[in-house]
């Protein structure tokens, strides 16, 4: 139990030496290594955080860009739909206009065709009427009818306008002028005298009369003097009717 002071002092020195040894060969190197490792880990963590932050920034940027893209896409799509709608409307208007024009053109063609058809039918009807009238009058043609037509013709001649009568009078006073009187049936002497008397009374001269029979006239008279011709027959009346009808067309 006694304390050996030499041992005591040497143990104190020994322990201090041990502290120095451990401080220089254990604690300091290991702690420095741990500090370097912690620094490395901190640096790595800092780099990782920086990378994470950068990644976050990139992600945010990407999301913003994606949102911009989506917005741009929506805008362009809306604009495209508007343009499509406008183009569709414009095309529909153009189509409607073309259809209206086509419809008008078709209506005009139909109207023209119907008018032509109507005229054709009318012409055919008139032709048929002329033929019917011609056939009917040909059956009704007789000396009595011709006598009545002669009377009517002389009445019409008596009622000729003055300017027309002047031209005929001039032709009648030409030297050698002769009046060709054509009839479908032979005229009676009385009828011939009345014709001569009527002409003389209206023309002021008594022209020579040449009487001829022309069955094509149907009934009635045809007076020809130079370039003048006065028609009082059924055939001439029907011809004038047909000419007037064609002229009306």
């Amino acid at each position, binding site marked *: *139990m*006694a*304390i*050996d*002071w*030499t*041992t*005591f*002092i*040497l*143990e*104190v020195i*020994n*322990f*201090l*030496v*041990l*502290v120095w*040894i*451990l*401080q220089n*060969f*254990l*604690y300091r*190197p*290991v*702690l420095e*290594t*741990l500090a*370097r*490792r912690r620094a*490395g880990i901190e640096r790595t963590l800092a780099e990782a955080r920086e990378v994470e932050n950068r990644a976050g920034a990139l992600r945010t940027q990407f999301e913003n860009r994606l949102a911009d893209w989506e917005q741009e896409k929506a805008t362009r799509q809306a604009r495209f739909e508007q343009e499509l709608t406008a183009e569709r409307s414009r095309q529909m208007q153009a189509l409607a206009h073309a259809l209206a024009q086509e419809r008008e053109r078709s209506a005009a063609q139909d109207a023209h065709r119907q008018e032509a058809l109507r005229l054709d039918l009318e012409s055919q009807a008139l032709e048929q009427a002329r033929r019917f009238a011609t056939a009917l009058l040909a059956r009704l043609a007789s000396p009595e009818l011709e006598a009545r037509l002669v009377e009517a013709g002389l009445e019409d001649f008596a009622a000729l306008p003055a300017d027309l009568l002047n031209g005929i009078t001039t032709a009648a006073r030409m030297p050698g002028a002769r009046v060709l009187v054509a009839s479908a049936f032979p005229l009676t002497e009385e009828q011939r005298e009345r014709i001569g008397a009527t002409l003389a009374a209206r023309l002021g001269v008594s022209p020579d009369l040449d009487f001829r029979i022309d069955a094509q006239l149907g009934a009635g008279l045809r007076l020809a003097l130079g370039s003048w011709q006065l028609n009082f027959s059924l055939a001439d009346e029907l011809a004038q009717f047909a000419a007037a009808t064609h002229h009306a067309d």
Partner: protein
Amino acid sequence: MDTVPVLFQVGPFGITATVATTWGILLALGLICGLLTRHLSTENPGFPQTLAEGVVQTIEAAIAAVLPEETQRILPFVGSLWLFVATANLTGLVPGLHSPTGDLSATAALAFLVFLSVHWFGICSAGLKAYLRHYLAPNPVLLPFHLLGELSRTLALAIRLFGNIMSLEMAALLVLLVAGLLAPVPVLMLHVIEALVQAYIFGMLALIYIAGGMQSREESNSRPKGKTR
């Protein structure tokens, strides 16, 4: 128990087995630490480096649990106490060797160093006046008791370690003499545990004493000025 024999004389100084064994422990720890820390790597630490880092970090964590702000300052002293006392305690298991901590001179030297370190770290931390002032707290009448406590705890520190290790060695010797070869094995295992526990207790008590000395700074700072006179 007989006094530790003197192995040889160096002038007027007799070198005992305790001192010789301590030299051996110093040499062994120095070589082991040199080998462990010869090629330290921050990227690929091997098993020796991992072992060394584990030991240092364990000591650092134990100190940080008591004094987190002064860990780096007192780690060399307290860590060396733990390593030396543990190694010295276990040295007795080697046949033919004497455990240095079974010698009261060695444990007294360690306790003396702890005694000095408490005041050293306390003065370094709080300053001389503030450190000495904490002996007068809470009342100057308690100064003798403070001084008595300082001496008694240092003495207890030395005698506790010496008594435990000396008794362990003696018990192992008695069991070996009485029961033959195999019976002392459990006692030797108990010796290992007791050696490590005593090392831990010694170092932890030293750490607590040092922490108590350093906390005198906080006491002096938190005390009202009117009462510090």
